[in-house]
């Protein structure tokens, strides 16, 4: 009911304003946009007072003000205009939309700059761009909206994060960009606390020369998030809420029981075995496991309320929100609830001093399932389980005699497969045993600053920022029997509690002055940063005298022998920095930015503790030259370029030293006593040094026909001395791999951003698009082998990617197929130079492997590179149409030029189910040239070898958002005192154009595009209301 109170408050303040204005002049007028169309809802404030009004549907307004006063016109998405009244009683004003405004301001780190003089490659997303995006994770709201940033959701699980790569994969580990929220560094995993509707702007510093101001941690790009601040003037109350329903966009076509039985028979017979299912017809259709796990009506809602306002002394912005979302896969085990609060304020203490603070808090409670895991979880179970096993066994046999089988509400046991085992168990039974598992987090992020305007030219600012995070989880595991190797005979309850704290102090001094046509800003700064302060503990008890997870408690009297606990401390990470930036321009025509930063990191030994990172950028605004004739074709053109170096210390603590760790224990004697053993964890590397990323960038920003913005950037990024754990030979005898500076890698690319705005009759049209092209290549690897494996593996097949000089990072690597042997004659004619058979053990129906090295036999040396997991192209397009009170938006986004490893079927589980593509397998001459025969004795390795058979194109174009909105006419809603009442219908992930045969081609993670049963993105329909006072 907060809403009602604020509403009354509003009404009262308006009444008071009217009372106070009795002595003033009545003024009226109209507000237009640049196309001469009236703008409703514009806030008109008398400067220095809290008196304000709002323009009506036709853009008209009336207000009473003193004749010497000033009116301030403001509206979201438009530049603020101030008009001195000077005795006038009728004032018409034209507002310029911000994106076309040259005075748009960009946050650049430790300050902001006019866009027109920015020299770096910085992409920006403003609040108005995010307005129409349903409240969710911040990474998702960036996806497809800025060029040069590849974003792929790690999973469709509610609240799950996304993998964000700025200008490609910069290094081998720790490629997350640096997130800075209101000046506080927040780790990539922790930014889930942000509430999307609190965001004023997001700036992505892509080029090294811009990011260099963040020195050591900027190698993978910097993302600056600025939250909303209050504005002096009328208090604004904004409510935005929606309800929605989610369902899977697609399910896989899997074999039914009869088809499955036939293929299992065929497989067995082909290997000389018996017919497994003599009576196929009796098998029928069988169980649809996917139907059992997917929820076609998963609910979702979001409510956001914000209040902002202020006066000449203080301003504030505060918000409250709640979001709740059920996952589409086994919703009981996959749900997310977030409550958040924010308070930002600024206060003018005196003429000189200003104090400000930001504070955000989020509480999240969630539960989740394995989102992309081949060994466990409902998705991989539903795909691999045989369709013969029933969902619920109505006629239990001996196999169900175990007292711990999980039963449904009617007391019947859930079906247990005797054909498919290991982690692939009945997902409904699995759901039951996971009911008592959930996690919670509480995040507090904020800062306070004191700013002093010492002279007209000198400003100093001290900022203290902090982030405190708590995350807990608890799991009650009942006794269960889901299969022969998947059972627990003693229940347990565990609870873990973790805390981490980070703080930083920054002191900066800025000097700004103008000498004739020379503009100069010099920034000097110092910062100290400490993170990873904290620790956690887990306690676990066994044998609780209960069966229901709801009764789980640590208060039960459990004997000491059934109690376990473990506790850990985090190791602090510290940085100390000095930095400076110079911005200079001549007539805003010739631009220069220079940055230098020196960082010291606790992660390096004395030999290399400090690193210095310089950069510069130059710009030339061609259209400001005298020789440039103003014309209607090319209105503005700025050419800019630069070069910079940034660092990376993302390698973990103490890697330069050899630590002696415990945990290598042994038990002597017959009393069960355990002695603690210690051993060296790894080898020393005192020369471990900073990884450096240098980047050259050149680009231009332009405006054509007063309506088309075009920005193009070209970059080349070189990372040298990449920090990585070296896979050392096992004979060295250390348990853990040492770290080293082992490789160099290049990224180069082109980014194009396009914006177009036009009025066609009564329709306002705006189109935005961006396309990025990226090329990644490893140019040096220090070890003698010239390649590195070990980042993406799969049971039976082994490693599926390899990092090698000349190839893109973690490229797919395996055998290349050249069709299928249709008959023995083809096998016999596939010979080497000496006439021997290249594949002597092959049978008709087996793959013909390409003998890459030409040595006349198929061996590991024939493996070759089969494609990259990194999308070459990423793109996004937004279309906005406004007509009268209706607005319509379409947003599509996609990626192309990458391969996906389709590992949905577990090969090592012989009788796992197949996708229906298996029906088109080779069964005789001429039946198939791309899907081999099925046999239990796959001596040719058709399925057991990593090959291009497992790779598919990852290209996709997704209709991410479609939204239709209707705003009630302002004369209607002004009766209830509202300035805006808009209703909207949104569809998210309506459909995806792709040839990929898995659930979802968008697969994030350390290595993109490894599909082990990824949790797909949900298709959601939402109905929402936006109300503003």
């Amino acid at each position, binding site marked *: 009911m907060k809403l009602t109170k604020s509403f009354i408050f509003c009404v009262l303040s308006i009444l008071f304003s009217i009372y106070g204005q009795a002595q003033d002049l009545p003024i009226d007028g109209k507000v237009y946009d640049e196309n001469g169309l009236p703008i409703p809802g514009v806030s008109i404030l008398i400067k220095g007072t809290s008196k304000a009004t709002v323009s009506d549907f036709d853009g008209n307004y009336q207000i009473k003000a003193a004749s010497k006063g000033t009116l301030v016109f403001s509206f979201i998405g438009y530049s603020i205009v101030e008009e001195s009244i000077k005795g006038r009683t009728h004032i018409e004003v034209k507002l310029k939309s911000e994106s076309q405004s040259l005075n748009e301001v960009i946050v650049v780190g430790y300050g902001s700059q006019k866009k027109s003089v920015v020299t770096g490659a910085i992409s920006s997303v403003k609040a108005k761009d995010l307005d129409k995006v349903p409240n969710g994770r911040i990474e998702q709201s960036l996806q497809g909206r800025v060029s040069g940033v590849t974003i792929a959701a790690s999973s469709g699980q509610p609240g799950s994060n996304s993998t964000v790569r700025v200008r490609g994969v910069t290094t081998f580990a720790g490629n997350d960009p640096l997130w800075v929220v209101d000046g506080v560094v927040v780790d990539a995993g922790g930014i889930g606390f942000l509430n999307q509707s609190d965001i004023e702007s997001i700036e992505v510093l892509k080029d090294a020369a811009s990011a260099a101001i963040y020195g050591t941690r900027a190698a993978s790009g910097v993302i600056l998030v600025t939250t909303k601040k209050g504005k002096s003037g009328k208090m604004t109350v904004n409510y935005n809420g929606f309800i929605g329903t989610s369902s899977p966009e697609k399910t896989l076509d899997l074999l039914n029981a009869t088809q499955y039985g036939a293929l299992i028979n065929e497989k067995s017979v082909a290997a000389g075995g018996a017919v497994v299912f003599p009576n196929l017809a009796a098998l029928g259709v069988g169980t649809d496991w996917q139907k059992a796990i997917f929820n076609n009506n998963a609910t979702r809602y979001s409510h956001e309320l914000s209040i902002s306002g202020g006066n000449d002394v203080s301003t504030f912005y505060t918000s409250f929100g709640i979001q709740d979302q059920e996952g589409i896969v086994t919703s009981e085990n996959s749900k997310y609830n977030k409550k958040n609060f924010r308070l930002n304020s600024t206060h003018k203490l005196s003429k000189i001093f200003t104090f400000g603070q930001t504070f955000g808090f989020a509480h999240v409670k969630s539960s989740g399932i394995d989102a992309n895991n081949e060994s466990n979880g409902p998705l991989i179970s539903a795909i691999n389980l045989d369709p013969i096993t029933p969902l619920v066994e109505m006629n239990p046999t001996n196999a169900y005699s175990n007292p711990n089988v999980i039963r449904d509400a009617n007391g019947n046991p859930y079906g247990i497969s005797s054909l498919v*085992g290991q982690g692939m168990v009945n997902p409904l039974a699995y759901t039951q045993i996971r009911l008592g598992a959930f996690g919670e987090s509480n995040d507090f992020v904020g800062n306070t600053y004191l700013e002093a305007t010492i002279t007209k030219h000198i400003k100093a600012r*001290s900022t203290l920022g902090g982030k405190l995070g708590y995350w807990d989880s608890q799991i009650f595991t009942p006794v269960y029997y889901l299969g022969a190797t998947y059972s627990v005979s003693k229940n347990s309850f565990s609870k873990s509690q973790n805390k981490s704290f980070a703080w930083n102090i920054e002191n900066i001094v800025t000097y700004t002055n103008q000498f004739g046509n020379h503009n100069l800003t010099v920034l000097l700064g110092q910062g100290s940063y400490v993170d990873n302060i904290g620790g956690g503990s887990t306690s676990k008890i066994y044998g609780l005298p209960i069966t229901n997870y709801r009764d789980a408690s640590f208060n039960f009297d459990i004997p000491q022998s059934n109690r376990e606990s473990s506790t850990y401390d985090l190791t602090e990470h510290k940085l100390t920095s000095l930095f400076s930036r110079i911005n200079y321009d001549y007539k805003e025509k010739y631009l220069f930015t220079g940055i230098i930063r020196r960082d010291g990191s606790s992660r390096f030994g004395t030999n290399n503790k400090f690193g210095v990172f310089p950069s510069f950028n130059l710009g030339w605004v061609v259209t400001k030259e005298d020789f440039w004739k103003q014309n209607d074709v090319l209105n503005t053109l700025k050419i800019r370029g630069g070069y910079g170096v940034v660092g990376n210390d993302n390698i973990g603590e103490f890697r330069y030293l050899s630590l002696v760790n415990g945990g290598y224990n*042994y038990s002597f*004697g017959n009393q069960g*006593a*355990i002695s603690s*053993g210690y051993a060296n964890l790894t080898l020393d590397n005192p020369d471990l040094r900073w990884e450096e990323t240098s980047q050259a960038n050149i680009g231009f920003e332009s405006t054509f026909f007063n309506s088309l913005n075009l920005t193009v950037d070209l970059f080349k990024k070189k990372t040298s001395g990449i920090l990585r754990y070296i896979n050392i030979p096992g004979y060295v005898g250390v348990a853990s791999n040492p770290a080293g500076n082992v490789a160099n890698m290049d990224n180069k690319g082109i980014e194009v951003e396009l914006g177009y705005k036009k009025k066609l009759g009564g329709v306002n049209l705006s189109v935005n698009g961006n396309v990025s092209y990226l090329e990644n290549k490893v140019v040096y690897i220090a070890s003698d082998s010239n390649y590195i494996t070990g980042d993406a593996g799969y049971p039976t097949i082994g490693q599926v990617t390899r990092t090698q000089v000349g190839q893109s990072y973690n490229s797919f690597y395996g055998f290349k197929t050249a069709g299928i042997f249709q008959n023995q004659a083809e096998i016999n004619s596939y010979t080497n130079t000496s006439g021997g058979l290249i594949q002597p053990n092959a049978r008709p129906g087996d793959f013909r492997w390409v003998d890459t090295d030409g040595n006349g036999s198929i061996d590991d040396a024939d493996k070759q590179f089969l494609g990259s997991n990194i999308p070459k192209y990423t793109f996004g397009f937004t279309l906005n149409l406004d007509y009268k009170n209706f607005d319509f938006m379409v947003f599509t986004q996609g990626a192309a030029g990458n391969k996906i490893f389709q590992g949905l079927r577990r090969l090592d589980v012989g009788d796992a189910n197949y996708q229906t593509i298996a029906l088109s397998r080779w069964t005789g001459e001429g039946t198939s040239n791309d899907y081999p025969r099925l046999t239990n004795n796959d001596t040719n390795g058709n399925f057991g070898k990593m090959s291009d058979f497992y790779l598919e194109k990852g290209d996709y174009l997704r209709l991410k958002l479609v939204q239709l909105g209707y705003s009630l006419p302002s004369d209607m809603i002004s009766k209830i005192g509202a300035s805006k009442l808009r209703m909207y219908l949104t569809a998210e992930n309506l459909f995806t154009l792709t040839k990929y045969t898995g659930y979802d081609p968008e697969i994030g993670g350390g290595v993109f595009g490894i599909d082990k049963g990824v949790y797909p993105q949900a298709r959601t329909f939402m109905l929402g209301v936006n109300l503003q006072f």
Partner: protein
Amino acid sequence: MKTIKFKYLFIVIAMISLGSCSEDFVDITPKGSFLSDNYYADEAQATSALVGVYDIIRKNSGSFENMIAVMNAGSDDHYAGGGSATDGEGIQAFSKHRLTSINVLRPFWTDHYQGIFRANTLLLKLPNVAMSDNLKARFAAEAKALRAIYYFNLVRIFKNVPLLLDPLTATNMYNVEQAAPEAVYAQIEKDLLEAIAVLPTTVPVATDGGRLTKCAAQAMLGKVYLYDGKKAEAAAVLAQVNGTPRQANQYGNKLLPNYNDLWVFSNKFNAESLLEVSHTNASNADWWFWGSGMDEGNTLNVMVGVRNYSRTSGSTAADLAPGWSFDVITQDLYDAIKTDPRFGATVFDMKAIKAAGQADYVAGYQDTGYFLNKFMPRNSDKTTGGGAVEINYQQNSYIIRLADTYLMEAEALGSGARAQALLDAVRARVGLPSVPVTLAAIKNERRLELAGEGHRFFDLVRWGDAATKLADRGFVSGKDEIWPIPTSELQGTKLKQNPGYN
């Protein structure tokens, strides 16, 4: 004036925080672990380092890829078994003699080298440890004996292995080459001889059972000599271990009167045991650290257990916990041991028990109905503490026991009265009459006496019988006697793959 003061205050604050952020600000010392430079300072730290060397010996029966389970699977006495043809890729591949450099059980290489690294590090640091010289000498002897045991496993399994006696460093680690097997054997023998000179004759069983003794090192040395073809030396040192057959040896060891007592889990460090691997449920081993240095449980037990074993009501069948049906016994061994007094202790005849309606089970992969009774997971041995029940069994396993050294000495001697007496002693213990001592008789006795204890594959290879006995298992003579070197060891190194593998 007031604002000016504010101004200075501001600058002062800034200057202070600037000063506080000097270079020591980013110096952090580790907590919870030690720096190798100043570790190994005193007796307590040296003891911890020695425990770390012992840690690896648990590989005999701890963790999934343990010596006994895997080596059994490659012999003619057992199949890999398990849940399916792909349940444990390495053990399945070895059972079918289809090892490749990729599916080879890499921990058999890496774990042993970790033990060697730890032994080498301790031996390097010991001279500077502040502790008594006697104790230093004993620690060094233990480290050398353990290093010898680890190299012995390596050279038997992989044959061509690097021989490292000092810890490697980041700069020289790629310059290593494989040593000739003869050189490895020579070093093993040297280490053991040096250890024998120092090791204590006995240790207090309650607190130190499992630590190396003179007798254990001698027994190992005898075994090493036998594998190294030095029969005379083997017989000589084993004679010291065995003493007079059927009587206690000089250290008090003798055959247990009852063969079945060898397999009672609580019968740890019994008189017949010369060197055994210690297990306990006290580490509360849990899946997340299964097989790590913190897991002190026996994994072999659950591996060889009967899949889904369930007794019918009123059953008189053994009270067993269910297991994973690895190392099922072949019909061949069954037939060989069927009438032997050791049958009951060796084979859990599930086939008969099921036929009698006493218990039921689910047939795993390669099921024969015969399970390895010596290591059955028993409900009486189930942990009542925390951790996963499956991996907290506490039955110890023998690395070498007196019946083994009796038969090895007999084999080394080949014939004669003493050989006959040694063979007779082993047979008499289980009530079998004397048979004339021949190599064939000794081979047969070894097979039945030591069935399922992980020796058979090595024995077959040593006797040159592997090719015939394992022909139907895919064994290729001249190749499958040893394992391939894991791929990871060949990348960027000077190591060469074993013959026949790529």
